[in-house]
């Protein structure tokens, strides 16, 4: 019998995720010590700056070497490290059920990604919550940092079923209300929005205005992206099954170009608002995709 942890976090994936850290690009004001930079100065190990000694400062922080050279009293200040609250927002709309020829369904792939991220973040002391949108926006789990919370996250990922067609804006706004400022929101979706992603961009912008870090992981299959476009058929959108289009995507050279243009435009608008856009393909192993992404973040 398999458990959610072995389903979504097989040993091979855990091996690749060992030592991986997703450092926030924003300054985090957390309650606990963590790996992220904090606006507070204090007991950290990273030197921040010198300042003039003021009455009441702890003499343990005086820089005696500098006093010897300058004959003035300076205090050494250090950056504190803090943890953050984060939300994994998973798209469960009907389009996420699509798997392509012999591939893994996008929702399943999103589950792998979410599980891996939860494992890494909880391991780093971050609080991780879980939300989903599809038929309706749902906040499934509030942010928790305890180790046992990972199991709850995996269980909820296992229970996700595709269906419906709903926008991501609603759930993002609810996450914004629930989550402390300066948190992290990771949206895992195919971003096939009826409005072309306008509401997504706006909602992500609102989160960014709060000081949250917003990351969008776009998941697409090779059939959808045009890398392995299907042969002729009568195609329909799972979220709008009554709408059918007779087409030959494999023979349609413009198909892949139009798909790429859509996502490029959406990515540009997201980046304009400081949202990190990460395109993923179901043809790519999860661990490789995540490791590559984290390495790119480190610069």
């Amino acid at each position, binding site marked *: 019998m398999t458990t959610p942890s072995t389903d979504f976090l097989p040993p091979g994936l855990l091996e690749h995720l060992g030592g991986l850290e997703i450092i926030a690009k924003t300054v985090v004001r957390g309650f606990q010590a963590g790996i992220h930079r904090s606006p507070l100065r204090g007991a950290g190990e990273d030197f921040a700056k010198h300042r003039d000694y003021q009455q009441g400062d702890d003499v343990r922080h005086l820089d005696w070497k500098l006093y010897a050279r300058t004959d003035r009293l300076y205090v050494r200040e250090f950056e504190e490290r803090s943890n953050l609250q984060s939300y994994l927002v998973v798209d469960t709309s009907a389009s996420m059920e699509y798997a392509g020829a012999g591939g893994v369904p996008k929702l399943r792939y999103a589950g792998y990604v979410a599980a891996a991220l939860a494992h890494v973040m909880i391991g780093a002391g971050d609080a991780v919550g879980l939300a989903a949108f599809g038929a309706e926006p749902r906040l499934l789990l509030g942010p928790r940092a305890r180790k046992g919370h990972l199991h709850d996250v995996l269980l909820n990922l296992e229970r996700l079923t595709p269906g419906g067609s709903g926008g991501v804006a609603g759930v993002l706004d609810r996450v914004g209300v629930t989550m402390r400022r300066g948190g992290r929101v990771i949206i895992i979706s*195919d971003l096939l929005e009826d409005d072309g992603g306008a509401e997504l961009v706006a909602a992500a912008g609102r989160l960014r205005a709060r000081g949250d870090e917003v990351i969008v992981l776009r998941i697409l299959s090779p059939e959808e992206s045009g890398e392995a476009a299907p042969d002729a058929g009568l*195609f329909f959108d799972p979220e709008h099954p009554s709408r059918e289009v007779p087409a030959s995507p494999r023979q349609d050279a413009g198909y892949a170009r139009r798909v790429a243009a859509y996502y490029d435009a959406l990515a540009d608008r997201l980046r304009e608002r400081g949202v990190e856009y990460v395109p993923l393909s179901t043809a790519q192993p999860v661990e490789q995709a995540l490791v590559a992404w984290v390495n790119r973040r480190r610069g």
Partner: protein
Amino acid sequence: MITFGTPAFLLAGALAALVPLALHLIRRRPPARAPLPTERFLTADPRTSVRVSRPTDLLLLALRMLLLLLAGAAFARPVWLPAARGTSEIVLLDRGAAMASGDGWRQAVAAARQRLLGADGAPRGELVLFDTAAGRVPRRRINPALFDSLAAAPPSALPIRYAAALRAIPGAARDLRGADSVRVTLVTRPRWGGWNDGIAPLRRAAWPGAIDLVALPDAVQADSLGADTATAEAKQAILFADPRDRVTAFPVAALQATGWEVGVVSPGQPLPPQGATLIVVSAPLPAAAVRKIVSRAASGATLVVDAAAISSLASALPWEPARADSVAGAIWFDGGLHLSGAARRVAGKPRRGAKVIAAWDDGQPAAVAGRSGAGCVVVVGTALAQGEMVLDAAYPRVLGRLARGCESAMDGGADVPLDAGARAVLSGAGPRMVAAGAVGGSGGGTALGRWVMAAALLVAAVETFLAYGRKRAA
């Protein structure tokens, strides 16, 4: 080898089998419906809304074509025939009482054996034994031992009936297996006892070709002929008739067929010198000639007078004329001899001492015979050279019977050989070997129609099962 009774159905089945193939190829159907979340980026291509279907389910297509082919083949009435074995024989072996004389029976069995058994002792046809009735010997029993046992046992004591043998031919021909052609052989000692008027049409109906007649030598033939003519000299006959009349040829030929040397004498000519033991008068004679003829009869000759000469010899004849009756008919002799087609009938009755030797259908005397000294005078109440009776197969035999005069060769059950004409009728004309298909021999194969139909039904069941499975899976 497989042959077909109605091969047109085979062609129809083949054509019908092309129908599902054509439907499979020309049917246009919409393309498969498939989900694609990025459908919004597709450009509608009307050419893909319908497409020419390629065979998508070859197994189902093959089953449907096979079903129609099998159905056509079943209706085509296929028959499996074993390898052709050339000519098959049907031997009609006479086992009547006449075969008992001399070595006839052994010769007959040997002749039948020679025709029926191959070098390996296997039968080459059917054996029919007949006397008054015919019986077919089962093919499995036809072997050398059978012929040995037949030769060892005597023939039956019954007279023969050729009609019974002829009627057995079609049945025997139908049971032949794998023969290209069929030949019929009749091994017999030809006797009038087996004859009747229906032989000629029956022979034609029973067998379209000629029958190979193996006529065994007749041990009593010389005796029988001797009944007609006592000595070689006595076989000379005189026929008083108009030689210019073409119908005269009929009695001449009939008498010759029974062994007489016939001299035709015109009624006005003088009577030839002594030597003729038979004088047939078929024309009115002058009084001088009448006296000479009567004296010739008294000296031992047989005088046969027909209706044309009765009036000129009336006083010398054992015949008492009665009122003339113009209604002619058939004449019956003792022993079953029957002559039809008489054109004229002269009524009369025998005088004292004379004997009726033939009668009309109504029982009135048709011919009488009476002694005249050492000879005999026979009177026939019809003209012997007129009417259709000259064409009757029994005509020669009737003349032969009349020529025997006051002696009755039929008395005591003696039977006389068939004349050449009757033999010719019995053997018939045409090819001796007839194609097996013409006599039903080709029907002897194994009919495969119901098996092919059963196979078609099986294929139909499999096709239905598969199609149902495909539909459910879809």
